[in-house]
């Protein structure tokens, strides 16, 4: 295999190539081989670092070990460690081993800013990465920008792409809420119904859904008959169900937080068997087993998944390697404890982001922080990422301007307390023109 020629794991120059390419089997196998090949046999890349740089690349991992994000934090940490291990077993980042330096931010924006500070000035890591909750991202990003350290978030929030942050923040491997909603609304309106009731939490995450779903409804000639905002601390939801208009054809819900199971159960109690179509987001059920008591009401309803929890949902080679490496069984739970259900639709972002960082490091020839500008510009030049072991969720398109990626989404139906994938959206379905251009900002 020649040096710089076609390395499928690296960034692809032509956007159209991703969408037309078949995304199963063949590519994955080639991609897998490409990873190994590029790291082990490319002499040009290796020699750039041979000169005295076996020092590890240190990545500060801002993790929600405590606080409301702790369930995600647990799985983010497992995935991160698995990814680092895999990368190190296969040649590291440009020949240098990866070292993960974790710090708990308590899912608290105040602590988040302090943690970024600590990473940059005390631990002196190369990059900071890993934040999920959007308010923590908001609270921590300014500091990353001031300290001029690249900050890779795995958040799903629209903040990065909205231009509210700074040029040092990237969200390269997990799609944002706006993109997700745009991708799915077409299918929902065409298949489930054109009169929709939205039920969402009464804060920014919920408002994103409210706003983008409303915009999508207009586009598809559908109508939002009711918008029900529920406070995040609500523990009982019965009273809200009564407000759902009788002619609603589809209910769209994105409840998150500890009250979710109650929400589902009470929805079941309220409607009985006489219910409209229901579409939910997997955020409601991350970390929760589908056969939990009271969830049988969900049979026959639909959910968005970013990455199918059950192994038969997207059985590519890359997916299998990834699932095995992070220790998740075919039902989406931990191999060592089948009751410990994973947050499968979010944690892949950690794995993929680490690989994306690896690609940027190798392509830009990064050695230390003096090379930040070069690394950032290289990253901004990426057009996307190919599906494979490094990117098992699927191929991505990346906008250097908004620092945000676009990707495929899955729609699953709950049958017998299990998810069955019924539809896969294309990257184009979720595409929107970037509304900001970070590349115009100085570094």
């Amino acid at each position, binding site marked *: 295999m020649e040096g710089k020629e076609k390395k499928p794991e690296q960034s692809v120059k032509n956007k159209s190539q991703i969408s037309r390419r078949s995304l199963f089997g063949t590519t994955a196998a080639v991609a897998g081989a490409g990873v190994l090949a590029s790291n082990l046999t490319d002499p040009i890349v290796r020699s750039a670092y041979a000169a005295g740089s076996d020092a590890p690349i240190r990545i500060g991992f801002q993790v929600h070990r*405590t606080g409301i994000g702790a369930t995600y934090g647990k799985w983010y940490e497992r995935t991160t460690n698995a990814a680092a291990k895999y990368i190190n077993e296969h040649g590291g980042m440009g020949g240098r081993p990866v070292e993960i330096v974790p710090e708990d931010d308590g899912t608290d924006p105040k602590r988040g800013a302090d943690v970024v500070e600590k990473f940059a*000035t005390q631990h002196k890591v190369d990059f900071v990465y890993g934040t999920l909750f959007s308010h923590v991202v908001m609270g921590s990003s300014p*500091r990353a920008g001031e300290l001029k350290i690249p900050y890779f978030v795995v958040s799903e929030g629209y903040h990065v792409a909205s231009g509210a942050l700074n040029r040092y923040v990237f969200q390269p491997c997990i799609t944002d809420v706006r993109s997700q909603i745009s991708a799915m609304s077409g299918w929902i309106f065409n298949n489930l119904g054109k009169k929709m009731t939205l039920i969402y939490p009464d*804060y920014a995450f919920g*408002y994103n859904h409210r706003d983008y779903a409303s915009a999508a409804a207009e586009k598809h000639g559908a109508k939002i008959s009711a918008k029900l905002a529920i406070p995040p601390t609500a523990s009982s939801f019965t009273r809200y169900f009564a407000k759902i208009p009788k002619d609603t054809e589809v209910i769209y819900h994105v409840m998150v937080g500890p009250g979710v199971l109650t929400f589902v159960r009470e929805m079941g109690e309220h409607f009985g068997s006489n219910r409209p179509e229901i579409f939910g987001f997997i955020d409601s059920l991350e970390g929760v087993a589908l056969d939990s008591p009271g969830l049988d009401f969900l049979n026959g309803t639909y959910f968005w998944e970013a990455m199918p929890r059950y192994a038969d949902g997207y059985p590519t080679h890359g997916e299998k390697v990834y699932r095995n490496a992070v220790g998740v069984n075919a039902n989406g739970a931990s191999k060592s404890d089948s009751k410990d259900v994973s947050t499968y639709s979010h944690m892949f972002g950690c794995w993929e982001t680490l690989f994306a960082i690896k690609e940027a490091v190798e392509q830009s020839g990064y050695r230390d922080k003096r090379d930040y500008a070069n690394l950032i510009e290289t990253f901004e030049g990426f057009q996307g990422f190919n599906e494979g072991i490094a990117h098992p969720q699927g191929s991505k398109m990346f906008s250097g301007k908004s620092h945000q990626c676009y990707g495929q989404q899955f729609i699953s139906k709950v049958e017998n307390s299990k998810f069955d994938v019924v539809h896969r959206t294309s990257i184009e379905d979720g595409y929107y023109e970037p509304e900001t251009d970070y590349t115009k900002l100085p570094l």
Partner: protein
Amino acid sequence: MAGVLLLLFVLQFILPAYHHSTFSKIMVLASYAMGFNILLGYTGLMSLGHAMFFSTGMYATGISVYHFGYTGIPALGIGVLCTVLVSMLLGLVALRTSGVSFLIVTLMFGQAVFLSILYFDQFTLGQDGFTLTKELEPLVLGNASYSYTDPTFKYNAAWFLFALSLVITNILILSPIGRVLIAIRENEERTQMLGYNTYLYKLFAMTLSGALSGLAGSVHALLFSYVGATFAEIHHSIAPLLWTLLGGVGTTLGPLLGTGIMHYLIDFTSGWTSAYLLIVGAILVLLVIGAPQGLMGLVRQKRFPWLP
């Protein structure tokens, strides 16, 4: 007092980068705690809702800059003004109660402010909050332009705020008003019988306390860019209580000591256990059993009775 100020000022030239910025933050938060201490340490009123003053200042300043394009100093002024108003209004209602009732009332109003921040999310951007990085223009003093987030500027601004709080606190406790407040703390009934309108004095203390806390909030927004609902949560009300108690309630330097120690304690312990709040809880309990006057209080008791 002057010694401590001088020391802090000089430290900025010695401290390594991490501690340099940590100290900036500690000084701003210590000012918040000092505002709190005016009410607790010197007037004897424990409030569990001070986050509402801090966040009023923070949001008033933040919104002025973010939505209305004000520059730093006018935004600061707006912040202080709003906080003074809020503290006075709250005082008018809450000071009709005392002791435990007062505590619960302040707690609840603190929650109400938190909920309003979430409710009026078109302005406040709710839970997520917003950052001032792009909207805040550098401060222009004379011919020089200073960016608010520049580390040296941050440190000195924080130092200035802290010095101001220290001066205000000192003037207060040495003044006649201050002595009445302390008398109220010791025995309100007796003070009343001596002819003082304790209600007015308490209102004054509350307004001053709230204003100082709000000022800290405004400065925090300008220096650290992020304005978010997390600063109005109940934990942010418990924080100054914890810092003041640890450092020494009723001492002027106590809050600084407590804020600093707590900050570094959490920093160290979160390194080796994710249950660091457990340690915080244990410290609170031990403190209250063994050393209710806090560290400075202990020092004052055992060695230097003249400490304010």
